[in-house]
């Protein structure tokens, strides 16, 4: 099939991301014009004076901009993790959410929040994600040869357990609005995202995501399995565990600010693959870019669709992602 040039798609997505971020910041109950948004942001960067009142300026700078930037970073991180996991496990259904990493990360995050150690939030989420992933792979392995569907089944079991414990911990401890709290961890929500969330997610993208994006060639060598990768001079176990740990780390950082948002890691790498083909040197950065654009709009929908009520963004991503997941399943029925 005719494919798009990766460079062209990359440029288009980079522009789309910038435009999406700017437009998304202008959307919301308080009506703020495009140019006002940018003059307000510029004023915070030390250029000129904000044209907005203090309250409206606060809406742009304290609420909407950090939320939109966090959405972009979370989308990029989840899509990147999904693409890496799909390659390294040779499983087209691999995704941080389906394999239980996101639920594990949420459990880790909720546990330290309960202990009052919020500083450790991303670390705890990482440990939760890593434990959940290990458990999923062990469980899948104990069912026989590790196949994509067995891994997803194991992931569902691990995910269900982690989610149940998360919900239990919240109901048992929180005195306020437990239901809302549970929902935002289990379905994912960016409503609480402020500048610290931008910091955590951006650091994860820059420190872990970008080096991971440079491993495309290594991931390509896994297309025919471990033996071929090894024969091409790849250190198979170091690469596999290093990249799975990196995926868990990125997922942990994202989930610690957003809760577990599903399907982003599953569907966007598949979409990019359809457009530019399976080569990972293009697939990884393009999945991250598309993931960023996708989640900016998914979150914008989540907060405006039923204005003034807000729905968890995970509902939006699941509405879009679940049918695509079903499609991928039916397409694979012969080989699972």
């Amino acid at each position, binding site marked *: 099939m005719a494919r798009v040039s990766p460079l062209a798609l990359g440029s288009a997505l980079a522009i789309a991301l910038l435009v999406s971020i700017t437009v998304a910041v202008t959307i919301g109950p308080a009506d703020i014009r495009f140019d006002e948004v940018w003059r307000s942001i510029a004023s915070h960067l030390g250029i000129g004076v904000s044209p907005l009142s203090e309250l409206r300026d606060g809406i742009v700078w304290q609420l909407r901009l950090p939320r939109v930037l966090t959405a972009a970073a979370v989308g990029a991180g989840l899509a990147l993790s999904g693409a890496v996991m799909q390659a390294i496990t040779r499983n087209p259904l691999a995704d941080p959410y389906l394999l239980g990493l996101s639920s594990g990360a949420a459990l880790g995050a909720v546990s330290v929040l309960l202990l009052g150690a919020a500083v450790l939030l991303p670390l705890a989420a990482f440990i939760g994600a890593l434990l959940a992933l290990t458990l999923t792979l062990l469980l899948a392995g104990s069912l026989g040869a590790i196949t994509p569907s067995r891994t997803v089944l194991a992931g569902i079991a691990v995910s269900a357990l982690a989610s149940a414990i998360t919900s239990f911990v919240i109901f048992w401890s929180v005195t306020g609005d437990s239901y809302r709290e549970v929902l935002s961890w289990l379905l994912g929500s960016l409503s609480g995202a402020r500048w610290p969330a931008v910091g955590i997610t951006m650091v994860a993208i820059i420190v872990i995501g970008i080096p991971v994006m440079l491993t495309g060639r290594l991931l390509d060598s896994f297309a025919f399995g471990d033996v071929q990768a090894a024969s091409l*001079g790849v250190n198979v176990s170091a690469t596999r565990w290093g990249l799975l740990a990196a995926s868990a780390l990125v997922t942990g950082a994202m989930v610690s600010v957003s809760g577990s948002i599903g399907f982003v890691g599953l569907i966007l790498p598949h979409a990019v693959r359809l457009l530019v083909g*399976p080569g990972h040197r293009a697939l990884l950065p393009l999945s991250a870019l598309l993931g960023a654009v996708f989640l900016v709009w998914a979150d914008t929908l989540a907060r405006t669709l039923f204005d003034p009520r807000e729905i968890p963004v995970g509902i939006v991503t699941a509405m879009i992602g679940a049918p695509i997941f079903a499609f991928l399943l039916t397409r694979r029925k012969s080989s699972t």
Partner: protein
Amino acid sequence: MSDNSGLAAERIHVTTDGTLLIDNVDCTVARGSLSALVGPNGAGKSTLLRALTAVQAPASGSVTFGGHDLLGMPRRQRARLAAFVEQDATTDSALTVGMVVALGRLPHHSLWEADSPESAAIVTASLETVEMTTFREREFQSLSGGEKQRVMLARALAQQPQLLTLDEPTNHLDIAAQLAVLELLSSLRDTGVTVLAALHDLSLAASYCDHVIVLSHGTVVAAGATESVLTEELIADVYGVTASILRNPITGKPVIGFSPA
């Protein structure tokens, strides 16, 4: 120190889950020869090939090629020296033929450098060698078994190896494709590459290979020049069948006929 010696393996042991699969194997493959590794199912041919190329390192033993310690050298350096084509390689990925062959350039590049024109030329030349140039943009998965095997061979050639090992390269192929693969291996041998292939078909081994290594129950039971090794007695011993060594009236090469013991 690099020298002109071929592949030399000594005291190779391979154990998997507590079972000894390869038991104290010594074997050599002369530089620039085409050799066959034969033996009944379960003799340990695949295991030995993987051990020799350190794809799955043996529990103990040494393997040298041209005086280089194959097991001890850095992985990428080894992958530039020795290529391995596994049996029935499959993928779920929609890689094109060109991309599959380009995988062979992996040990020659650092991770983030762009594809060099030199590498692109080597990929093209490798595809030419296996006569798959026109398939470059086709999806690997859409190819026939024989075409896939030729692409995997081109991938190995793109590594520019001096040693090429193949596990059952004629498996599941029709006769014409089997002969095409062996013809290719012979012409590679003629360009100076040392080739070792695990083969099931003893007649193919007899007509194409300079040397034969016979493996049975994880040990080498015979090795040497093809005609001196593949005798009716040895085949009866190793395979438990009655063999008759005949002559191909056209090529003059040995052909082996079988009947139950």
